[in-house]
């Protein structure tokens, strides 16, 4: 793959088959071998092609249910595509309220596990450990299992791991719309700093101000279709027009 490209999507599509029967046991499957299950097909992502360059901040906009979250899961390699392929050049991380954390582990263990999943060596995590803990403001609870954390503490820790450990390609799914005011301020502050520079970021947001401010290019989706991918202002105009 071209070194300047972080993500390449070729002819990708995704359809969800939602079954109205719950054939998720061997018994059900055997007893209903000859009765076809009542399935509904929901085409979540219709055939699309595009490339995202390294270091680029790309916006992803569209109305609720248009397939934004499914698309980022395909691009992050979390969901498999039905057709085509996605070439991913580096580690990926989807971040909404936080990152994936185990309730059974302490904050310290979760920091090490999550950082390791994101490709950091233990020594590298040692170096940023204090920064993560202080940023999340959980110093006195660092050896407490996260299942005893409040949702705010969880959100802060997840956010702190994501921004400090980071992945090569970050998918930020509505991070400005979750958490309390302090959390949102923190998210914005990080964005105001030089954090975004040099990172490949795919930013999902309903805030057109945020999209205009940070994204060089923007993709506009409608009913699973990639209607437009290019200059941010044009994509935003199309989205606003669609909402009227």
């Amino acid at each position, binding site marked *: 793959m071209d070194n300047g490209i972080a993500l390449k999507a070729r002819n990708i599509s995704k359809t969800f088959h939602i079954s109205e029967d719950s054939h998720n046991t061997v018994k059900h499957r055997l007893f209903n071998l000859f009765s076809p299950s009542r399935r509904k097909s929901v085409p979540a992502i219709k055939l699309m092609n595009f490339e995202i360059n390294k270091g680029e901040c790309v916006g992803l906009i569209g109305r609720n249910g248009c397939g934004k979250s499914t698309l980022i899961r395909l691009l992050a390699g979390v969901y498999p595509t039905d057709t085509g392929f996605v070439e*991913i050049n580096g580690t990926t991380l989807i971040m909404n309220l936080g990152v994936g954390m185990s309730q059974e582990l302490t904050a310290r263990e979760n920091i090490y596990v999550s950082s*390791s999943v994101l490709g950091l060596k233990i020594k590298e995590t040692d170096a940023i450990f204090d920064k993560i803990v202080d940023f999340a403001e959980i110093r006195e609870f660092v050896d407490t299992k996260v299942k005893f954390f409040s949702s705010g503490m969880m959100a802060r820790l997840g956010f702190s791991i994501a921004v400090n450990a980071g992945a090569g390609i970050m998918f930020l799914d509505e991070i400005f719309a979750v958490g309390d005011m302090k959390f949102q301020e923190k998210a914005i502050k990080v964005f105001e700093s030089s954090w975004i520079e040099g990172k490949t970021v795919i930013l999902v947001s309903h805030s057109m101000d945020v999209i205009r401010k940070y994204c060089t290019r923007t993709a506009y989706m409608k009913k699973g279709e990639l209607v437009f991918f290019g200059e941010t202002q044009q994509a935003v105009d199309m989205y606003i027009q669609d909402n009227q």
Partner: protein
Amino acid sequence: MILGNLLKDWTVRTNKLERLWLLAKIEFKLRYYENKLGLFWALLKPLLDMCIYYVAFKVILKTDVPSFASYLFIGLVMWNFFLESTNGTIALLNTKKYLYEYSNMNKLEIYISTLFANSIGFLFNLTMFILFFNFFEAGSGGFSVYNLWIIVLFINLFILALGISLILSNIYIVAKDINQIWMVFTSFLFFLSPIFYKLSTFKDALPGFDFGNPLAGIIINARRVMMNDAAPDFKLLGFDFGYALVILFAGLLLLNKLGAKAAEKL
């Protein structure tokens, strides 16, 4: 060359090996340190199992297997690793979902690290067996260079358990009750493996089954190298490696086909 590159990729270029170790360590800690008995239970369990079967087969049924306690012990050590690595990992993709639902982490690493955690337990148990056999067993011939073959046999067992673990946990995505089915199957397999039977009785009753049941071959060979001062039966070893590799291949295919959908189905 290829192996060298692979090793370099796993150690220097990326953090894969370190990650496997970190995940294994945490898994091991969660399993043992969270309980009141802690690590002590890992050591106590095979001893208690051994006592139960010893009473049943030696005291009550008067079996004439020499060094029966050690005979049972090594059989149970191998069996318990297999059971923990298969029964204990059926819902793995569900319990470890947090590791892959937000990133493109390779799911195979989750399996390997979990089996590494089980391997630490295996190592404790094997050490207990070696101490027991060499210092407490009257019929022991002492240490032997053939004991080193246990490493090869363990690799065989590891591959077999990994393959079955992959198959079961991926079937779990579409059929949750595979758990109950496998529990019944393993009870059956336990009695079809020469864990407490005399080997000649086992072979007479089930001719050819030492080749038909991959676990039977591993247990038979483990006794040869650890207790009988003999090399493993190479034909049996070849068969068992063959089984393990075929099962692993099937497991990897399933991981690729069904496991890829784990994030959306579970």
